[in-house]
């Protein structure tokens, strides 16, 4: 789960990482009041979860109350769905660094990434100047040792008090990473001020979904999700991704879903959403289909090949869903695995035509979607 900048910075500050003065605002008036409180010039930073906010005009410096009001109004009214603005003091910057901690799946440790060129996306850096990226591997049990922080600081070419301040920020960022079960803790840019201080110019913190049970206070709200349906699904613990197309996928397992997504595209179709119908959700067919139909798709395509998630149980659920929800669009079913013989009868009784080949099912769904609603 990705946190907003203001949340990431709160987590940073809790471990003692310096951050600029900032106030969170949720209305235009609050924004202006916050800017007045912080003083001008200051920066209005839209709290949304996509990259490139600067280029998109979602982070704007303001020099007075009038522009603060005008820009705040523009941001809250923008199409990007801005609901919160972080108002931050403007900092006199000498240089910008990149600093992040993520995981190294091969070496099975935490991985510090740093670069003397901050402000650039790390993917961009990895493409254009991979040798500029400094890497330091950190054992999760023993944690970051002081010498490792110094190694990174000196590799960045920092000196004196700035090197020391950087090393401290890195040690604290590692504590943030560990305490929050993070998959990514990133400060980009990390400001070095004209007087040699180091502070977090931006903040990304992404929490491992599998460890969310240890962080109940971080429970995500509506603003984390692309759509109301995605939010509804999340509340019920159902993995869900929103896309722009017209075929709604109920699939069991991310690997199979990814493959079906490819096959739909190969056949010239497009996917409206993917909803996880496997694992613990295989008995939730009615609710699952209800969510899918909320997208008003042209076809619902159900593909499974289950072992524990029994085909007959899934078929029963689908039959019940069709009976109770009466979808206006066609439902294509390809439900296989344990109990599949029994499933066939159930699906036929429900008026559905059971298929056994994934590609055949995809072709049928795409054809139906292209043909419009029956």
């Amino acid at each position, binding site marked *: 789960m990705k946190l907003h900048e203001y949340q990431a910075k709160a987590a940073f500050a809790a471990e003692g990482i310096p951050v600029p003065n900032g106030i969170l605002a949720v209305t235009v008036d609050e924004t202006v009041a916050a800017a007045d409180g912080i003083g001008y010039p200051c920066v209005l930073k839209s709290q949304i979860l996509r990259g490139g906010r600067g280029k998109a005009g979602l982070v704007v410096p303001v020099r007075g109350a009038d522009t603060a009001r005008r820009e705040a109004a523009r941001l809250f009214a923008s199409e990007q769905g801005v609901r919160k603005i972080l108002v931050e003091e403007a900092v006199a910057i000498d240089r910008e660094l990149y600093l992040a901690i993520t995981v190294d799946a091969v070496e099975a440790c935490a991985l510090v990434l740093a670069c003397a060129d901050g402000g650039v996306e790390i993917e961009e850096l990895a493409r254009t100047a991979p040798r500029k990226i400094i890497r330091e591997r950190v054992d999760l049990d023993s944690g970051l040792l002081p010498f490792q922080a110094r190694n990174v600081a000196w590799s960045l070419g920092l000196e004196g008090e700035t090197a020391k301040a950087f090393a401290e920020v890195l040690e604290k960022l590692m504590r943030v990473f560990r305490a929050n079960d993070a998959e990514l803790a990133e400060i980009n840019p990390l400001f070095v001020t004209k007087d040699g201080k180091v502070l977090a110019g931006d903040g990304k913190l992404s929490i491992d979904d599998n460890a969310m049970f240890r962080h109940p206070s971080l429970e995500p709200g509506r603003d984390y999700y692309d759509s109301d349906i995605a939010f509804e699904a999340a509340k019920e613990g159902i993995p869900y991704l929103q896309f722009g197309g017209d075929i709604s996928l109920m699939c069991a397992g991310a690997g199979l*879903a990814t493959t079906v997504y*490819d096959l739909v595209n190969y056949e010239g179709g497009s996917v409206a959403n993917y909803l996880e119908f496997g694992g613990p959700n295989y008995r939730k067919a009615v609710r699952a289909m209800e969510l899918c139909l909320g997208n008003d798709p042209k076809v619902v395509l159900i593909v*499974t090949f289950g072992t524990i998630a029994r085909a007959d149980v899934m078929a029963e659920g689908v039959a019940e869903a069709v009976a109770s929800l009466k979808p206006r669009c066609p439902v294509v079913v390809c439900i296989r695995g344990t109990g599949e013989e029994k499933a066939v009868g159930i699906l036929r009784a429900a008026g559905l035509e059971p298929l056994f080949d994934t590609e055949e099912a995809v072709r049928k769904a795409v054809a139906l979607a292209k043909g419009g609603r029956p």
Partner: protein
Amino acid sequence: MSIFIDRDTRVVVQGITGGEGSFWTKHMIGLGTYVVAGVTPGKEGRSVEGVPVFHTVRRAVAGHAADAAMIFVPPRFVHDAVMEALDAGIRKIVTVADGIPLHEALRIRAAAREAGARVVGGNTSGVISPGLAMMGMFPYWIDRVYKPGRIGVMTRSGSLTNEVTAMVVRGGFGVSSLIGVGGDAVPGSRFAEFLPDFQADPGTDAVLVIGELGGTMEEEVAAAMESGAFRKPLVAFVGGRTAPEGRRMGHAGAISGAGSGSAADKVRALEKAGALVADRPAGVGKLLARALGTASP
């Protein structure tokens, strides 16, 4: 022949008295797996499917010389269960649970490497050598999906496994050993780590890799082929070739290894190394036949 497990592998089942544990213990035994003991803390003295249950893995190993551990415990207890198995001297471990916390997955892999052990999973169906034995959850009783043969299979996806093995069988082949390394960001073992075993296995003629976007496991397979460490024919399928960017992978994580993590890059790397790459599951049968120089039926 097989890698990882055969009929002499002495399996202890951790979490044997749970619903999943007891259900799959029955089926593992049904296939021919030698399940020698089970462990559930607090339930020593019981038995499940005729298998004696102990409080701890140490006791199970002491009494029954288990040399492999099949772990059926909820995700947040997996780390402890793996460490317990390692502590008891077990060096082959399969853990199926989906939802192991990331930092614990890192610790599991780190501990396994330090111990010189192999942990398969989590978030996997496990390991099977059809007709012989399995540690995991495979519906081996569905003939059109599981058939003994001479193709080694490695997969990251549990849900794709039945889909693709059915295609192997439809292509006229069968499986020597199937290793589900699992769908987690940090699996206990990685594709390339099994290539030496498949290379050495006289029962395996070719290997099928079922990959997907994200991470660098497919690139590591390509590197093993490029280096000459793996020399048998290799067929691959990589899911997610049309997936929109950033909808699955972590952020900085993708740059930690060699590749970009995109399916297209993986396909390119594998093909460059000499693999035949199918663009859909249905294509694997034909490519296996081509790789092995046999006529597809």
